[in-house]
């Protein structure tokens, strides 16, 4: 998975953020010294940089400018200031995205994956597999032992989210939140309908009981 470098001066945010990103399958490194941080980022060959603006020694703008001199690694600026000037500055210095603290983690993850997708797309179709089922994200197709079925946009998102966390329970709220982040404001009933339909689709390619319901907790694959 993608390698992310975190430049952040608050130690707690640093550790918790790396923990969170690791949980979502990213490889993370964070620095606690800010002296030679630019070289550290370049030698780590990070695929994405999360950069705080308010830093000791040099501020985020300076680091952003320095990195842009030698690398096109995507940069997401993270800051607690939400002024237009900050956003404008960041964009002018070549940052790819801008997000304010405290961030909704779902939004942060969505931004990270969209920036990564934008930068590193290509390299064939994106697929994810778990216990015999393969999901092709670019074609919206699920396949099992040579049989294929086409899925709707919502079904792909739900299945993708569950497959990203194999053997872990994903709550209904988390699934709904994920769908909402792509502007599908589904309610409880719609989610039930989507899940039922997804199960039916999977049954047509010979996959039974793939989505396990954990009563009162959520779903799991």
């Amino acid at each position, binding site marked *: 998975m993608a390698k992310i470098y975190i430049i952040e001066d608050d130690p707690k945010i640093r550790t*918790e953020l790396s923990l969170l990103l690791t949980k979502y399958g990213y490889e993370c490194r964070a620095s606690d010294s800010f002296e030679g941080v630019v070289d550290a980022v370049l030698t780590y060959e990070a695929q994405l940089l999360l950069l705080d603006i308010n830093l000791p020694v040099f501020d985020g703008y300076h680091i952003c400018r320095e990195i842009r001199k030698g690398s096109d690694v995507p940069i997401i600026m993270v800051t*607690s200031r939400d002024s237009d000037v900050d956003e404008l500055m960041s964009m002018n210095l070549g940052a790819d995205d801008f997000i304010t603290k405290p961030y909704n983690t*779902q939004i942060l993850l969505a931004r990270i994956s969209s920036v990564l997708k934008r930068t590193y797309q290509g390299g064939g179709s994106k697929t994810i597999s778990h216990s015999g089922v393969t999901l092709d994200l670019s074609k919206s197709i699920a396949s099992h032992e040579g049989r294929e079925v086409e899925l709707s946009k919502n079904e792909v998102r739900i299945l993708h989210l569950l497959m990203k966390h194999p053997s872990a329970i994903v709550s209904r709220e988390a699934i709904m939140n994920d769908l909402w982040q792509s502007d599908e404001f589904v309610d409880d009933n719609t989610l039930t309908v989507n899940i039922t339909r997804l199960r039916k689709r999977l049954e047509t390619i010979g996959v039974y009981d793939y989505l396990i319901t954990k009563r009162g907790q959520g779903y799991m694959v």
Partner: protein
Amino acid sequence: MKLRSFLRDKAVLLTAFFLAFVFVLIFLSVLRVPGYSIGFIAGVLLLAMLAGLLTEYLYKRAYYRQVEKHLEALDKKFLLMELLERPSFAEGEILYDTLRRTGKAMNDEIALYKRQSTEYREFIETWVHEVKTPIASSLLLIENHPDEVTRSIGEEIGKIDGFVEQALYYSRSNSVEKDYLVKKSSLKEMVYGAVRRHASGFIENKVTVSVEEVDFTVYTDVKWVDFILGQLFVNAIKYKQDPASIRIYAQEWDNRIALYIADNGIGMSEADAARAFEKGFTGENGRRYAKSTGMGLYLCRKLCDKLGLSITLTSCPGSGTTVRIVFPKGTMHLL
């Protein structure tokens, strides 16, 4: 300056003159001065007095008329002294100098308060940004250690974040400087963005959100509108009744775009609806259902006023509240 009030001020002078005049006439007739001479002297005295009074009256009247005219025309009355010329009669000079000095002293006083309020505002801004870091790290900690307790703490932290945000926008709404950036923006993006940001609140409270036709271009400040929408969403969640739903749609009329946020919550009485935007007004719902500060809608109105938007509210007890925000469509506002 009325002639009568002018003469009233001169009452002492006039009485003294009249007495002296009568005395002189009597004195002259006792001395047996011929009648025509007395008449001539009386005429001269009266004429001199009249001419003197009239000149003074006309001169002062012209000056004070000018003062009144300037005062009327001025938007900020305290700037009057900047427009006036120093008069050339003694009382006027004293008054003019006094007013100038008090005016200057007042300006210094105002400058002091202005500086204090700017400093305070700067402090609030910095404080808000400082406090956002611990909020962010708490939320991350909660996210990484999910259980019942942390989930509940997370909700509370979310509330704190909301209050902090209110404080920030309150200080911004009070500032004298222009603190917003009006630009061409997509209403759809703003609405969708705001709904996305409040996704967890809606989902946890099982509120169905339906966004209908909102694909319009408006001229406004995106962040401020985002904050306003957030306040409205929080209210819709706070005063919901199951099954809760919120409908967002927009209409175009007369070169304006109206955005409607309609919920099916508990609503409020007509009397409460009329006062809903007042500062600190909580109404019956605020007392009965959820603790409320009466700041949310007040801030919405204040920010809307600054942005040149109109915000109105209609409500029916038991069947919901609809808030309407009207965006002017012309580009005039950019100026």
